[in-house]
C-alpha cells in the first residue's frame, strides 16, 4: 500500500512538472520563432529600402553622366523632375519624375517605366542644378525612400534619405 501511494504521489508532481516545463519550453520556442520571423522581415525591409535607393541613384548617375545637357531644372534652380538632353535621338529627352511615390523614367516618346518595385515609396524628390558657369553641368539629387507600411507595423518601418551628385562629362 505504502509503495503504491508513494508512486501515485510522485507521478502527479512529475506530471505537473512536465506540463509546466513543456509550457515554458513552448512559450520560449514560440517567442524565439516569432522574434526570428520578425527579424527576418525587418532585414528584408532594410535591404529592400537600401537596394531600391541604390538602384535609383545608379540610374540617375548613369543617365546624367552620359547626357549632353540638362533641360530642366535650369542652372541655379530646383525641381521635382529632371529632364536630360541625351545624345541618342530616340531617348531624347530622358525625364525622371515621381508619380504617386513611384520613381519613373521616360525616354523620348516611349511610355514611362517604373524604376522601383511596389514595396517602397519615394518622397521629397528634388533635383538641384548646381552647375557653375561654362561647365558641362552638375545635378544634385536627394530623396527619401520608405518601405510601404499601411498597418504601421514595426518590422516594415524603415526609411532612409539618399543624397548624391553627378557631373556631366
Amino acid at each position: 500500500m505504502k509503495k503504491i501511494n508513494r508512486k501515485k504521489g510522485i507521478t502527479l508532481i512529475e506530471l505537473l512538472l512536465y506540463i509546466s516545463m513543456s509550457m515554458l519550453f513552448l512559450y520560449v520556442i514560440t517567442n524565439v520563432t516569432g522574434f526570428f520571423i520578425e527579424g527576418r522581415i525587418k532585414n528584408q525591409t532594410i535591404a529592400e529600402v537600401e537596394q531600391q535607393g541604390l538602384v535609383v541613384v545608379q540610374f540617375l548617375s548613369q543617365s546624367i553622366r552620359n547626357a549632353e545637357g540638362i533641360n530642366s531644372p535650369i542652372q541655379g534652380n530646383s525641381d521635382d523632375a529632371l529632364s536630360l538632353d541625351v545624345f541618342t535621338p530616340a531617348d531624347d529627352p530622358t525625364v525622371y519624375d515621381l508619380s504617386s511615390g513611384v520613381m519613373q523614367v521616360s525616354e523620348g516618346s516611349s511610355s514611362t517605366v517604373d524604376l522601383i518595385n511596389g514595396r517602397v515609396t519615394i518622397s521629397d524628390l528634388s533635383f538641384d542644378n548646381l552647375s557653375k558657369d561654362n561647365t558641362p553641368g552638375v545635378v544634385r539629387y536627394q530623396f527619401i525612400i520608405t518601405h510601404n507600411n499601411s498597418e504601421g507595423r514595426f518590422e516594415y518601418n524603415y526609411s532612409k534619405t539618399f543624397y548624391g551628385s553627378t557631373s556631366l562629362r
Partner: protein
Amino acid sequence: MKKELSNIKIKGFSVVEMLLSVAILSLLVTSLVGVFIFGEESTVLSGDRARASVWAEEGLEAVRNIRDNDFTNLVDGTYGIATSSNEWIFSGSSDSIGKFTREVIVASVDDDRKQITSNVTWQQTTSRAGSVSLVTYLTEWQAVVVSDLVVDVANASLGGGNKKLEGITIENQGIDDLIIDKITVSWNNGEGIEEIKIDGTSVWKNNGAGTPDGTQSSGVQLDIEDFTLAVIDGVLDITNFNFSGSMDGEVFTILFEMTNGTTAEVTVDLSGGGGPTCGTESDTLTIATNGASVGGGGSKELQGVTVQNTDTSCDITIDKITVIWGNGNDIEEIKVENSRIWKHNNEGSPIGKQPTGTEIDVVDYIITAGNIDTFNKFKFDGNMSGDTFNITFEMLDGSTKSTGNFTP
C-alpha cells in the same frame, strides 16, 4: 536512512537535469538571437556604407564641376563643400549631413593634374567608426590648346613703300592638316588693311576673297578663305599683309584661328626699325659687392652679390660665371633670386665640385631690363671667412664683366 537517501538522490538529480537543460537551451537561444541581431546590424551598416559612398562620390562630382569652371579653382588643401548662390563651392574644412562628415582633399600631382580624395566618416556603433575614401584624378584638359601652327616673325619687314608687311613664315608642326580659318591683325595707326596673301594666294581682299568686304581697320576679325596648311608643306611664306598706307614703326599683333579651335598669336615689333637695338650686354650690367657677406652654416656661403641691368628695354643673359678665391676649398652651388643655376651634381656644367678659377657654364639666367637681382649664394665646401673673391660674368653675347678683387 538508506531509502531516504536514495530518494533524495533521485529527486535532486532531476532538478539538476532540469536546470542544466534550461541553461543549455537559454545559452543556445541567446547565442542564436545574438547572431541574428548581429546580422540585422550588418544589414543596417552595409546600408550606411552604401549611402556614405554615394555621398562621398558627390564630393568628387562637385569638385569636378568646380574644375570644369576653372582648373585654377583647385588649390591644394582640405575642404568641405557647400552650395552658395546655387553653385558648388569649397567651404570650411569639412561638411556634415546627419551622422556623416565629409572632407575633400585636393593635392597636386603636377602642374596640370590634381588628386582629389573624398573621405566620409561616421560613428557606425558606439565603439566603431566607419569610413569611406574615394580618390580620383582631375586634369586641366582645357589647357592643352597649344597650336601646331608655328609662326616665325624673326625676318618680318616692311616693303612696297612700307605698305606691305613681309617675311613672316608659317609651319604646321603637328600630325594633321591645319585649316586657318580667321586672321585678326591689330596695329596702332589709322591705316586700313587691304589684302592678305599666303604663299602667293590671296586669302582675303577688300574687294575679293573672304569677308568682310572693304578695307578694314585694326582689330577686325578677317574670315579668310580657308587655307589648308599640310604638314608636308613645310615652311610657307605669308607673302604679305597689304595696308592702305605706310606702316613704318608699327607694332603688329597677329592672331591666327584654326578650324580645330586652336589659336596662335604673334607680335611683330617694327618700332625702331625691327625691334630695339641692344648694345653689348656687359655695358649695361652693374655689379655691386658692397652688400656681400660670408655666411650660412659654417660660413661656407658668399651671399648678397647683386647684379643690375641698367638698360630699360634689353635683357641681359648670364651664360658663364668664373669665381676666383684664395683658399683651397671647392665651389658647390650658385643660386640667384632663389633659383639654382649651377650645382655640382645637378644644374649646369661642369659636373663635380670645382676649384678656383674654373669657368662654370650655368643655366642661362636672364636679368630682365631694369631689374636688380641678388645672388642668394655662391656655396663652397669649406669656411670662406676672410677670403678675397673675384667674380667674372660672361654674357650670352660673349662680353664679360668682373667684380675685381673684393673681401666681404
